């Protein structure tokens, strides 16, 4: 079985958000990590590899430094890493990103493609389903459990108040939830392999069956009209009182607002 896992290097927004003096996000000062949903997708692929035997290729699109995240994946147990990087791919929205990744995947043999449900920087959850559409294969989003049975996958697909057990013939694309599993740590042997590993680097010319008009900023149907830092409504009153005073304070406010 051949599995392609799409991963993304993202700024770590949890806890360590840093701002420039002008109030914009200081991305350079923020740590980067492998996107959590993608890491769960990689872990799922590695478990399938252990159970059924598989070759796991990790694929990312990004700046040259995104190579780090491929090496991390190899240190966890992935077999090969491919970095798609090219100036003309910059500024891509989800349409152009999914076209790029589909163009890269067309060069590969695959039974299963796994992506994370969504990345913590954009939070769109669009790229996985869009890749599947470009490749004309089924998609199962929000996977909370993945099994293989013959030439099919059996997947638990999460919804708000239920889950569906779905069966799809491979090739198929699955988007993984971070809740799917607890990703493993890199092993010392894996880190050694990862340092030596040859990362394949592809540019625009290596993408198969994709027109220029579908790539990068120019190929993106959506355009940013404006971006700004979130304006919070601002703090109200803050008081430090003993317990019984606190109760009277809250009760007073609830009455003032006609809640009680």
């Amino acid at each position, binding site marked *: 079985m051949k599995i392609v896992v799409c991963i993304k290097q993202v700024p770590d*927004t949890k*806890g360590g*958000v840093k701002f420039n003096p002008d109030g914009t*996000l200081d991305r350079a000062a923020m740590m980067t990590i492998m996107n959590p949903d993608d890491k769960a997708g990689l872990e799922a692929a590695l478990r399938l590899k252990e159970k059924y035997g598989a070759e796991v290729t990790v694929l990312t699109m990004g700046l040259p430094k995104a190579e780090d995240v491929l090496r991390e994946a190899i240190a966890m147990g992935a077999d090969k890493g491919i970095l798609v990087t090219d100036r003309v791919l910059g500024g891509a929205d*989800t*349409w152009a990103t*999914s076209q790029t990744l589909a163009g890269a995947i067309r060069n590969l043999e695959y039974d299963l493609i796994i992506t994370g449900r969504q990345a*913590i*920087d954009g939070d*769109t*959850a*669009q790229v*996985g*389903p869009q890749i*599947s*559409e*470009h490749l004309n*294969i*089924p998609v*199962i*989003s929000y996977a909370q459990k993945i099994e293989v049975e013959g030439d099919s996958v*059996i997947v638990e697909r*999460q*919804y*708000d*108040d239920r*889950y*569906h*057990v*779905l*069966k*799809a013939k491979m090739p198929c694309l699955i988007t993984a939830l971070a809740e799917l599993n607890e990703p493993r740590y890199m092993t010392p042997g894996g880190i050694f392999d990862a340092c030596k590993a040859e990362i394949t680097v592809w540019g625009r010319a290596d993408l198969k069956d994709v027109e220029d008009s579908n790539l990068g900023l120019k190929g993106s149907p*959506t*355009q*940013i*009209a*404006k*971006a*700004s*830092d*979130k304006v*919070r*409504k*601002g703090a*109200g*009153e*803050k*008081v*430090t*009182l*003993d*317990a*019984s005073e*606190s109760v009277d304070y*809250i*009760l007073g*406010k609830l009455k003032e*607002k006609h*809640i*009680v």
Partner: protein
Amino acid sequence: MNLAEYKGVYVFAQQVDNVINSIAFELIGKGKDLAEALGTEVTAVLVGSDVKGLADELAAYGADKVIVVDDPELKEYRTEPYAHALASVIEKYKPEIFLVGATAIGRDLGPRVSARIHTGLTADCTQLEIGDFPINPIPGKEQKHNQLLMTRPAFGGNTIATIACPDFRPQMATVRPGVMQKRDKVEGAKANVEEFNPGFTPDNKYVEILEVVKAVSDTVDIMDAKILVSGGRGVGSAENFKLLEDLAEVLGGTVSCSRAVVDAGWKVKDLQVGQTGKTVRPNLYFAVGISGAIQHLAGMEESDIIIAINKDETAPIFDVADYGIVGDLNKILPALTEKLKAEKAAK
């Protein structure tokens, strides 16, 4: 693509088990605002099996027209037949704007449809309006009018971006549930229904449903609650949520929680407020022992009144709270509940 051919505001009327999801009414409500600004109408697209009877309910919340795509293949949600249904409606009717709820269904369906018809899709919008793009004129670039401007949070709620889709139609957005306002229901409204079936032929993209497993839940949906008593890691244990449940009971409210509480296994995910949980806007939100991570704030800061109780005076929750109390929840909550009970009894 001749953009001028595309007219009207369309919304996907999501139903599950032949019950229309509240998001459909919210989208119609917002769609009416947009349609009024554009001088056009709102059409709801109802997709399912034996769903025609639900059309009047969509009219009651303001849909000018309802397109019903009814087929046995559409009984349970599956990506492919639903994507085929919507893509076919778009090809035939050429809407200018198409809105879908940012639900576990819509966030799968929206991208598949937008990729099929080659247009842009803006995810998880919290604000939609009609305006110019670029917003301010730029020399040498045409400023287009009557564009859909879609605003959404990014970077875990740290930034907000406004997105346009000037050169492709329809302009598509998924919209965060609980954010847009429904219109008042007009009892007895009759829908102007048009039936459309593009034909459904199973192929490799049709997945098979082996089993449907429904979560057993008798709790109130926190998105519908007027008063929420929400707990975070500071509550300390699953057992200690009793303090919050008691307060919620006397206030006629519901208990919700932060992500940390779900991660700790104290409460189920259905009760989680925040970026990866639900967006709520109750009349009153009690944040108890919640530090206020940015992802949590993104899900509750639109609440009318926010009261925060936390022992850490530097907790970011105080930055959005209308009333912040620095103190011990274990002492304050029981006393507050008692006093409220006593006041109730006195009436």
